């Protein structure tokens, strides 16, 4: 029987960290930031597979890295939130509770298994004002950080963070916040260090609207996203900012916000990843190979 070489625990941890960090850095990025009306979640994503999701009434989820890994974490979060909300009350489900569960799980996976998860996730909980919003960054090794109003993860997160740090304004309105998010994501990855201009097809956008009662999560896509990227805010003030009641907007094409009903339309498209070998490797679905 062959003798195994001795590797010190420090070395093992370092190797795993390096492996996970490399995997995460290969993918595309996501940013989460607070604005006057809530929390904006934006991911660079050209596929129909989602990196951003609703977890509970006031809680959203964003992730980067390997799709199969963060998808199972997303399901777990929804399941835990729903079990807690069902056995106690809807108000008893908090972002901190979820962040704790994720940090425990990712920490255990990091120390106990051969291969760490190559993911970084954000749990965002919207409050009644930007000061009471909570953003938790949970990394592959289970460390958790409470972020001050904005965060970037995946890809060249450091560079994107710098853009956000300089220009983030918690009192900005939604179009300004989205413009900043798109510019920050586009600040890296261009040829010869040029910036890129990301359009509606390259972005996955959702908000946690602090003025909505009940489920605050709204996905913004299609015509609404185009209008928003063009900076039209009058349309949105009517439908996002002003709406406070439970009835969702009807599934008509002229409505900029997207209800679950309109999501159904979007889901008519095949959910599978296009298997075009020429398509650029996207961090959303693998190791970038």
């Amino acid at each position, binding site marked *: 029987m062959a003798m195994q070489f001795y590797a010190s625990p420090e070395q093992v941890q370092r190797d795993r960290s390096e492996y996970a960090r490399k995997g995460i850095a290969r993918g595309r990025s996501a940013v989460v930031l607070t604005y006057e009306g809530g929390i904006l979640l934006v991911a660079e994503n050209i596929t129909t597979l989602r990196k951003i999701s609703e977890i509970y009434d006031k809680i959203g989820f964003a992730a980067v890295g390997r799709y199969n890994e963060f998808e199972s974490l997303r399901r777990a979060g929804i399941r835990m939130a*729903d079990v807690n909300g069902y056995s106690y009350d809807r108000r008893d489900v908090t972002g901190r509770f979820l962040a704790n569960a994720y940090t425990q799980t990712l920490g255990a996976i990091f120390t106990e298994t051969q291969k760490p998860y190559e993911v970084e996730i954000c749990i965002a909980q919207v409050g009644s004002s930007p000061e009471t919003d909570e953003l938790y960054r949970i990394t592959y090794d289970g460390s958790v950080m409470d972020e001050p109003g904005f965060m970037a993860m995946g890809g060249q997160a450091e560079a994107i963070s710098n853009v956000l740090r300089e220009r983030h304004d918690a009192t900005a309105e939604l179009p300004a916040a989205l413009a900043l998010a798109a510019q920050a994501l586009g600040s890296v990855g261009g040829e010869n260090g040029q910036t890129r201009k990301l359009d509606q097809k390259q972005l996955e956008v959702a908000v946690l609207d602090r003025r909505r009662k009940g489920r605050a999560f709204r996905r913004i896509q299609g015509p609404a996203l185009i209008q928003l990227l063009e900076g039209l805010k009058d349309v949105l003030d009517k439908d996002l900012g002003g709406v406070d009641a439970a009835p969702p907007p009807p599934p008509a094409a002229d409505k900029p916000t997207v209800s679950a009903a309109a999501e159904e339309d979007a889901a008519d498209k095949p959910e599978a990843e296009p298997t075009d070998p020429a398509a650029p490797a996207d961090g959303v679905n693998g190791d970038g190979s």
Partner: protein
Amino acid sequence: MAKDFDPSGRMPDYFTNAGTSSFTQFLNHASPELLPGRRPLPPGLSADIAPHATTIVAIATAEGVVMGGDRRATMGNLIASRDIEKVHPADSYSLIGIAGTAGIGIELMRLFQVELEHYEKIEGTMLSTDGKANRLAGMVRGNLGAAMQGLAVVPLFAGYDLSPADPAKVGRIFSFDVAGGLYEETGYDAIGSGSLFAKSALKKKYRAGLSTDDAVRLAVEALYDAADDDTATGGPDLTRKIFPVVMSATANGTHRLTEAEITAVAEQVVAGRMENPGG
């Protein structure tokens, strides 16, 4: 739930596996004690130990559906509650009303609400109207044991169908039996102890293609007729200002009639009956 976590702090694998998009199936693994229908009951009939909820009516309209329920719960010959609410939104486009043992009915309804929302969040899309009704039928079926001992609960499910097979039929109504049988109803339906009288009233007054406002009026009329002949159904209570709960589901989502709206309708109905007690 915390007891299920292993000492490393990692979530048990049934939390993270892809397995199911159904909340009830998930609870089967995670916390089976939270599910109704699997608690051992002592032998014998136990029908009178808990309050019973009574009459619910649902009417299909040109724009969707309207559902109304009276406010009474009874325990034998006693009125257990004057202001119980038995009609609730199941999700953004559908409504659920319950008749039978109130405690089990309310639990079933809450579980069904979470079930629909859970599916929506996991899959990123809503269940079809038929899918929702089938799911509810399965949950009623799970309660059969308790039903045979007198703790029966029967829901009424109605919703606005976002992708109807027939574009003229956007309002769908489904009724159930205690064994989990699922039946789609045409036009209108009623459940509960006063349903016989409510249905007779609806049979005479219902016309296809009603507007939502007319259907609200018709629902309150039918509940009045049920209360007229069934002691377990409560009529509009003008002294305490307790009126039926009436909700609609249309393309704009679900809407519960406000206090002012339902007060106006109920007062009209009562005034009409002052002139003509038979309606």
